[in-house]
């Protein structure tokens, strides 16, 4: 299990054990964390699972694909550490990961 901390826009923290193999998005949705809608269920088709990856974890979460990059390009409040959480696979190496959620997924 990897401990992942999801921090809602209002500061509410959800520290969860997420099974490696799932995505960071699935870890949130399956635990009913508010603020990650994931309309498309992980098909990289909707950009409603936008998160900000804690700077310390950026390298470990890997690179964005061209598809993810172009979806994020049109999301709101995008920052350099923005990712679509459906594109980050959870591994043991991500134990301790911290992600913050944007104010809205539109």
């Amino acid at each position, binding site marked *: 299990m990897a401990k992942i901390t999801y921090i809602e826009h209002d500061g509410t923290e959800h520290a969860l054990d997420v099974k490696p193999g799932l995505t960071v998005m699935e870890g949130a*949705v399956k635990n*009913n964390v508010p603020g990650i809608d994931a*309309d*498309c269920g992980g*098909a990289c*088709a909707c950009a409603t699972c936008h998160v900000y990856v804690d700077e310390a974890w950026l390298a470990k979460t890997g690179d964005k694909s061209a598809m993810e990059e172009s*979806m994020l*390009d*049109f999301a709101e409040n995008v920052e350099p550490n923005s990712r679509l959480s459906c594109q980050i696979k959870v591994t043991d190496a991500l134990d301790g990961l911290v992600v913050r959620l944007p104010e809205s997924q539109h």
Partner: protein
Amino acid sequence: MSAEANQNACVVIVGAGHAGGSAAAFLRQYGHEGRIVLIGDEPLLPYQRPPLSKAWLKGEADADSLALKPADWYGENNVFLRLSGVAERINRSAKTVTLASGEAISYDFLILATGARARQLPIPGADLAGVLALRTAADAELLKHALGLGKRLAVIGGGYVGLEAAASARALGAEVVVVERESRVLARVACETLSTFFQDYHRARGVAFELNAGVEAFEGADNHIRGVRLSDGRLLPCDVALVGVGAIPNDELAKDAGLATANGVVVGLDARTDDPAIFAIGDVAHRPLPLYERQFRLESVPNALEQAKQAASAILGRPGPAPEVPWFWSDQYDLKLQIAGLPFEADRQVVRGDVAAAKFAVFHLKGDLLQAVEAVNAPPEFMAGKQLIAKRTPVNAEKLADTSVSMKEVAA
């Protein structure tokens, strides 16, 4: 009841699909503390249907990954499940739902999320083994077992379900023929450019098409399908047939209870029916589309989620979610199709990008307003298009067609 009192209200949800399951989850997210009963006629916990024709068929998804929430989530959140439960009757004055088992469940609020069922073909042989639909996990399991190297699949109906299953079946090494009544696939749901593109793409990957073709009967031996008899007399031999000819809303429960129905249960902007204690969400709802100033029934996950939020918000007296532009997606082979909006009253089309390179978008305009965009492997066109549809501001068609102008600039 005040919003505060509603926090403890008993909410009964009929239908444990994507809409029903999500309604329970949003109620808890929004702080609802009362009893929630989730009634579903399938034996399974709420799960995602879109992967059934794609990842699931190809063996790339399992029951756990399809599940909306893990099994223990329901107990931990006091969501009482009545799986394999069939709701037979609503008594609106007593505020109860009666199950086929005879059990009557009381509600303060009732959410109907009964979905839609696969339309069947009323032709001889429709009840043969191997004549399948693709709506539920049980359907998908049957189809998966029937497919494999060298198996012959006949898809009846060139809609999204049929084409996605065709692509998955080819990946599994099956032979596939798609039989379509109209002159092109996706005739009801996509423009001609897209239809032609998808036909060519499938043909190049070994899928055969019978267009303008009626189906007379399914023929079999030993009670199992052996072929599809076309109206012109030809027999297409097959080992399994998938019928994907649309869905019918499960609105009988609502209709029998005297609620307004019209190709689905009629609801308002907060997903409420004409009974203030009853909501209808997801595939079964005939809902307002404010952007297009009309009522419509949508079959999509984003619609199920949006309406689940609307109903949960209305029950708890919170402001509803921001209105959404309806959108859809389909994955076939290495193609990602994303559609935003609906081309109501569109009077012209603008193509952007390169159809032959499988990277393009078709924009549908009504005057200079964007009504819809169909994007193939073109996320910027989809995302910017969706924003333009929501904005309702005039669009410059010349810029739209010009790939040297970025979509950022077009949408600015």
